């Protein structure tokens, strides 16, 4: 059974869905909309690369690229979220004491001990 037309139709359909995401990226009133839109475009790119590989009949050449995207895609989103957090929420004066997550157990604090030490050394920063 020849599945190639099915895959090609799927590629074009995903491209049109990508266009919808792009509308949100271009028009999106807030930065959060744009971040989400670009993240979804990245996920669709991953799927599209695999589909192109299947149509070519050489998935093994393309699977590494999609793995790289799957591993690395959220770094950009994470950096953008950090940036957004920084420009929208000025930090309180005592970050350790004021903002402990209520669900965090005591053992989590031990895991975070080295990070906490570096947090306290950060306080000299003006």
């Amino acid at each position, binding site marked *: 059974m020849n599945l190639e037309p099915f895959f*090609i139709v799927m590629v074009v359909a995903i491209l049109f869905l990508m266009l919808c995401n792009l509308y949100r990226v271009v028009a999106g009133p807030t*930065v959060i909309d744009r971040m989400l839109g670009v993240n979804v475009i990245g996920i669709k*790119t991953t799927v599209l690369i695999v589909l192109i590989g299947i*149509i070519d009949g050489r998935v093994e050449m393309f699977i*590494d690229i999609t793995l790289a995207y799957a591993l690395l895609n959220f*770094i950009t989103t994470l950096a953008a979220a950090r940036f957004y957090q920084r420009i929208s929420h000025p930090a309180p004066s005592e970050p350790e004491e004021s903002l402990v997550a209520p*669900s965090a157990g005591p053992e989590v604090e031990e895991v975070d001990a080295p990070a906490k030490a570096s947090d306290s050394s950060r306080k000299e920063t003006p």
Partner: protein
Amino acid sequence: MTWDTSLLWQFDILILLMMVICAVTALALEGLLSSAIVTGAYSFLICLMWTHMRAVDVAFTEAAVGAAISTVLFLGTAQYVNRWIKKDRPREQGIKQITLVIAVICAVMMLNATRDLPEWADPASPASTHLSPRYIEQAYFETATPNVVTAVLADYRSYDTMFEAVVVFAAALVVMVVLRRTSHKHRMALHLRPKRAGRDTVLRGAAQSIIPVMQIFALYVLFHGHYSPGGGFQGGVIFGASFILLALCYNLKFSMNRFREHAVLWCCAGGVLLYAGIGAACLAMGWNFLGYGALAGVLGVSDVMARSHGILAVEIGVGITVMAVMVSLYNDLASGGDLEEGL
């Protein structure tokens, strides 16, 4: 096959349209955060374009650099710069209109010149008649490397690749020289930078589980470059991205404790030194610079296998340099040069 050709132009038209939309949007948006994010979407689309043209190695590089590094570096820089649009300056408006006219004229000239270019994938074009057939037919027998791109990159054109590694190294040096000044005035410029709040339990857990996978995948990409797309540059970028992820999920101090500053600098220079050292070793044994056949006697293998091993060695050098340079660029750009706190 009719399906495939029909896919070709639909796919091309749609992706090119989206790329133009992304480019115009990135320029038109005023916030630098939004612009950087839209540039990320542009990078995804151009990677799709290259995948579609079967330029798999280029697409891989774009995937690694575009998804992990470039937008993060943009965002790191955008913390310390700003942009605004002056609307009530008639003289600048005039200059901008002249710029627009010049840009349109140049675009028309270049579009006119594209008619002289050969068709895409034209077998009679100069690019596919002169040197490519020799590479495609002989590369495997001369270098025992099935991926022709790797063979061309690291053997036939190894001078180019060596100086690419030097350029990457120089980029890290320049950023360091420009940004590393800890004068009092500079620190005052950074005082608006608030501290990061919260404990980020989910992020830290995710980082702990994904970073080892990422580093193993980077090593796989580096060492499997002979047989599949990938190689030193892509593997190095992915390895460096794992340290950037560590800095994003914890903080810059934490990641710099794991990968110390002087180790980064040693790796930056050491990779280039390894590359050039292999070239010099070949020269010392009476072959050409970077003629890997000279290594046959040392390694105890045939000439062909020696070239394969030489390719692997210089790829490792490129990977080390690129990895360290990516970490160094992030450390300098995201902290504004004082290495106190990153993005």
